[in-house]
């Protein structure tokens, strides 16, 4: 009974099950593809630079391995490129003032500068052990040379982005063995 009602609601109100597709602009045409596909096909990012995306992917992957493959850079970039009220990033409701791109850019710049000051390389270029050491520090405290949004807050938000892309979708819930039990499926995952 409950299952049939849920199915009916999904059919009448929600449309098809989410496939994780996003509209990306490639070669002058808009195509629907997953962030993972977008990355593989070198879809240009709209807001983040290549260096920023590399730092974000590495940061996300250290925080939660798999975030890079799941498309954290394209997820964040997409939501930095839409009007603030349409953004689905969690910082939206933690009172970070829009536009949100400045927050991420400043945070990633601070991360890179901290990595350079400590290990001589941008964050994307340091080895796994050193990257982990950096994250272990900034997740709980503010380094003295950090020049950006508060390091633990920035880390908390990127960690949340990573959890979103790895476990916040239907596929992610399935990886945890959790039933989705959706009233309405989103038209896309994010």
């Amino acid at each position, binding site marked *: 009974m409950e299952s049939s009602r849920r199915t009916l609601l999904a059919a009448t109100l929600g449309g098809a099950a989410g496939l994780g597709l996003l509209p990306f602009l490639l070669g002058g045409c808009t195509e629907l593809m997953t962030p993972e596909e977008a990355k593989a096909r070198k879809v240009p990012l709209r807001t983040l630079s290549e260096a920023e995306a590399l730092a974000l992917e590495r940061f996300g992957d250290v*925080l939660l*391995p798999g975030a890079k493959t799941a498309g954290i850079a394209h997820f964040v970039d997409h939501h930095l490129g839409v009007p603030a*009220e349409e953004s689905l990033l969690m910082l*939206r*409701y933690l009172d970070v003032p829009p536009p949100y791109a400045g927050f991420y850019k400043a945070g990633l710049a601070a991360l890179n500068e901290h990595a350079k000051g400590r290990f001589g390389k941008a964050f994307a270029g340091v080895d796994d052990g050193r990257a982990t050491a950096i994250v272990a520090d900034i997740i709980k405290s503010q380094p003295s040379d950090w020049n950006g949004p508060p390091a633990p807050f920035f880390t908390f938000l990127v960690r949340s982005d990573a959890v979103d892309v790895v476990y*916040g979708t239907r596929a*992610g819930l399935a990886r945890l*063995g959790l039933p*989705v039990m959706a009233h309405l499926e989103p038209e896309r995952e994010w």
Partner: protein
Amino acid sequence: MVSRAAKVDAVIVGAGAAGSLFAARLARAGRKVVVLEAGPAWELADLASSQIWARRLKWGGAPVVHAGGQPGFPHNLNTGWGLGGAALHHYATWPRLPEAAHAMQSGFGKGADWPFEAAALRPWYDRVQADVGLSGDAAAEPWRPPGDAYPLKPLREFAQGHLLRGGFEALGLPVAPLPAAILTDWFKGRPPCQYDGWCDAGCPIGALANPLVTHLAEARRHGAEVKARATVLRILPDGAGRAAGVVWADSVGDEQVQQASVVILAASAIQTPRLLLASAAPEWPAGAGNARDLVGRGLMVEAVAQAAGLFDRATENHLGVSAGQLMHRAVPGDGRNRPFGGYQWQVGPSLKPSDIFGIAATRPELFSDALHRFLHDGSRNLATMVGMAEQLPDPANRILLDSRRDRFGVPLARIVHRHDAGTLALQRHVAAEGEAVVKASGAREAWSAVLGGGHPAGGTPMGSDPDRSVTDPFGRVHGIRNLFVTGSGLFPTTAGTSPTFTLMALAERAAAELLDHWSDHA
């Protein structure tokens, strides 16, 4: 060029819980009503079951400015955006305000008194719950003021609730089924809850009483005109000490005037003071209703605590509702040894992996493979509970106008707020109590945390004395007979109580007063 619409009986600013109820009552009585809502026109089909998509329902309007740069509490998380307001994503925890909360100043020398006793509010609580449909077990709530029994049986209790119930009972602390505006059986054509835990994303089946299925729907059926993307910029004075209507801007910024016999502000405890202050005019040089510099003062934000534990058995935390399954309450003056104030525990909320109250957020220090392991463990074995500790009103905690302006030229709300030492002490007590409960529940690992704040209230408190309050006991702004405020901004104190049921009862009471004595107000 400013266009002018025909004068109506009432214009209501904000389509959340209180504004929608006001609209329903006035429209049902035959009054011509216009509701103006700044955000989008959500429909039930927009309420996708996703914690990511749920964020669209949170505040997306003009940013607020936190004094000092650091948010004392997350405004955007606690407010709504669009038709339904915060009630579209609220968790529907609907306790009644404890009797003691009505007399905090006269009874304890703390805070302020409500302008009437608890008994005066009882019939309005009873009327709202019979209208909307509440579930719970009144007899199991020792802290509940007298009132009719809930019309519906309690929410189901799953393993998480059962485990934590054991912890409360082991410590001698009473728990009761959580009183909720969530249906446990068919009610007025609305179906019962399916316990799939997506309340935060909005309830498209209408088992949870969001305004789209309750009072906004009723208001529309009775002819109320509801306009989304309609941002009210200021209240217009009529030159004779009353409000003539409001100026509002549509989605492209064109200004329009809506004249009305009565103006009702239902725009949240933050945006309503902002609008009053932004309505300065020769008649109201310090803002509407602000002759005594009281508008915006006394902002109260409950201090949040969380307790959690991992168990050696499945907690079924994917089942249930976002609010929880059980409630424990401590009310001021109950004789228990603790820092002064009231609080409530919401026990056993349904959990999702991501988001601010998700599984990952309960252990913010974890990362890498440890976070993966915790998410897998927590998805099966985690139980949590959320506590809300009272903050008493302090005039220094207030809403002001900032020097920065929104895209329509209205100054942004500037929030000056901090939790005082007493509130923080109570919050720590709540967290410690919660951790003790989780341990007593048999958890293999237990922890607790103090978080930010929630449930903003006050700022436009009601009272009988114009020197101490912004509105009269019905929400009518002192000195402006046809200007009403509704919502949690009216609360003189909170006792750490989820606000929606109380603000609905106040709106029901005020709407009846307005209709019964229309010519006195309009």
